[in-house]
């Protein structure tokens, strides 16, 4: 897999994660297939709020789209994960430092109390997909360990 560098948050950064997922089918087959439309929402970046809609299907991330706030509902996400820029950068830096999320920076730990990250959506049974397929989403975000990330 080629070395990769990108700024967080950006379309390119999520595309690099998607590419890493798609190149490692055997790894993701081990976790089980994924079917989700997800929005990663980073609040208060130097460029304002940034939203990225990702479509997961089978063992791949098929689509990465940057969305403005008004386009989120139209994207029809199963779940949205949201937090402020500082929390996201701390999580990404921690993953880079440890090779994967440490106990204090797993997606579940950060979302546990609804802060500093929260997972939500219009339909709780669709939000639950986040927990049904948690191994895959954690592995996906842990791909950040292999990305040379700079911050805005």
């Amino acid at each position: 897999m080629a070395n990769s560098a990108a700024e967080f948050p950006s379309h390119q950064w999520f595309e690099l994660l998607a590419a890493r997922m798609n190149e490692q089918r055997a790894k993701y087959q081990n976790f089980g297939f994924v079917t989700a439309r997800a929005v990663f929402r980073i609040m208060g970046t130097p460029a304002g709020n940034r939203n990225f809609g990702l479509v997961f299907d089978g063992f791949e991330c098929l689509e990465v789209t940057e969305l403005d706030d008004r386009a989120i509902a139209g994207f029809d996400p199963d779940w949205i994960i949201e937090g402020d820029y500082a929390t996201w950068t701390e999580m990404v830096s921690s993953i880079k430092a440890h090779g994967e999320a440490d106990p204090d920076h797993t997606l579940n730990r950060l979302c546990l109390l609804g802060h500093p990250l929260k997972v939500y959506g219009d339909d709780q049974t669709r939000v639950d997909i986040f927990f049904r397929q948690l191994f895959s989403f954690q592995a996906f975000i842990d791909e950040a360990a292999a990305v040379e990330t700079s911050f805005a």
Partner: protein
Amino acid sequence: MASTKREPSPVALPLTTRPRPVPLPPPEEVKEKLYHHQEAQRIRSGQLGEWFTTPLVGGLWSEWGKHAKPDRIGMTFMAINQVSATPEPADDSFRRLLHSRYIKTHPGIAHELEEKIAPKYGTSRELDRRYQVWIDHAGELTEEALDRQMRPARQLRWEEMTPLPDDVERAFDQFATYLIQALYLCSDIGGPWMGLIHYAFAEVKSYLSYELFDYSLMCGLLRKRVMANGGGMGVGIEGLDGGLLEVCNEASQGFVGAVDRDFNAMVFAVDVLFNGLLMDIARLGQAGARSRFDRQLMTQLTQDCARHVAFGCRRISFYLRHCPDHEEAVVKLHLVADRLEPLQTENHLLNPKVLEPLAMLLGAGCGGITEGMRILREFWPQFAANYLARLDTIGLGRHDRCLIPAQPPF
């Protein structure tokens, strides 16, 4: 020595008598009879049976010439249903004990006999109506249940298990002991229903067997984990079922007699409510896990419980949309919830043998239990909120009558 006094059964069971054994005929007579059996004679004559002589199209054979192609996941139920003439069960009953929606009924069997061998209450395969059993997207959830089962040999590295301080190990072991009890409870309640579900609902039958496998697999893994890291099994919890057994015994009528059984009361109790709480607790356990190994176990448990909740929600949703008497179904389910919510809160969520070890894990040891309790208090509103949000989705809103406290009573 165990008492020989028999406790009265909580469920009214009909008297049963053991039939006297019929004397067996002598072996020579049996062999002679088998030799002259019409099928044995046919085999000796070299003739092939009806399975081979029936026309492939228009006869008893079904769906000859189909070429299902693997989909993006593999050769799934969804893939074969793409080419199947019966991707979903029909909305009527099925007459043969061993007949599935994929196999034709034999025209040689008279209607009278069909009626005789049809599923009936009090026999196996009695759940034979779509509204009683089926769920939306059954194939997909069933494949997910199979695909997301933990492969311990591939996904767990026992050699990476981390020694923990004694107080943390003790807390994890108590937490695991509680989980084992809770999961076996679900397994024991759900298991006997399996055989009652008709083969027409093959995906649901498969799903339920995978759910039972989830419980057994996780119980085994937790016990191995407890026994492998310097600790041991913790203290058993009395009354953990918090009304589940009583509700489910009533729903099953003790699995005896030609009576109505309420599969959906059991699904609501075990999958929607109990697994919903277990899922939240597994998330807390994942957050409190002090080693990567323990975190993996708790992530798996979170996934398992979330999937069981998904099954429960889809089942109840389908039931409420298709059952013949929606109003009665809603009333019955609300009554189940009315009974279980306070008992689950009292015996499960407020049980010190559950809360204290969890708080100790979240606080990273004995000294952090106050911080752990603070986290539990802050998390508490999610128990009711997540459950109620699901009920809204499936058409059983009960914000006005939910008896799980919205705020922590401690």
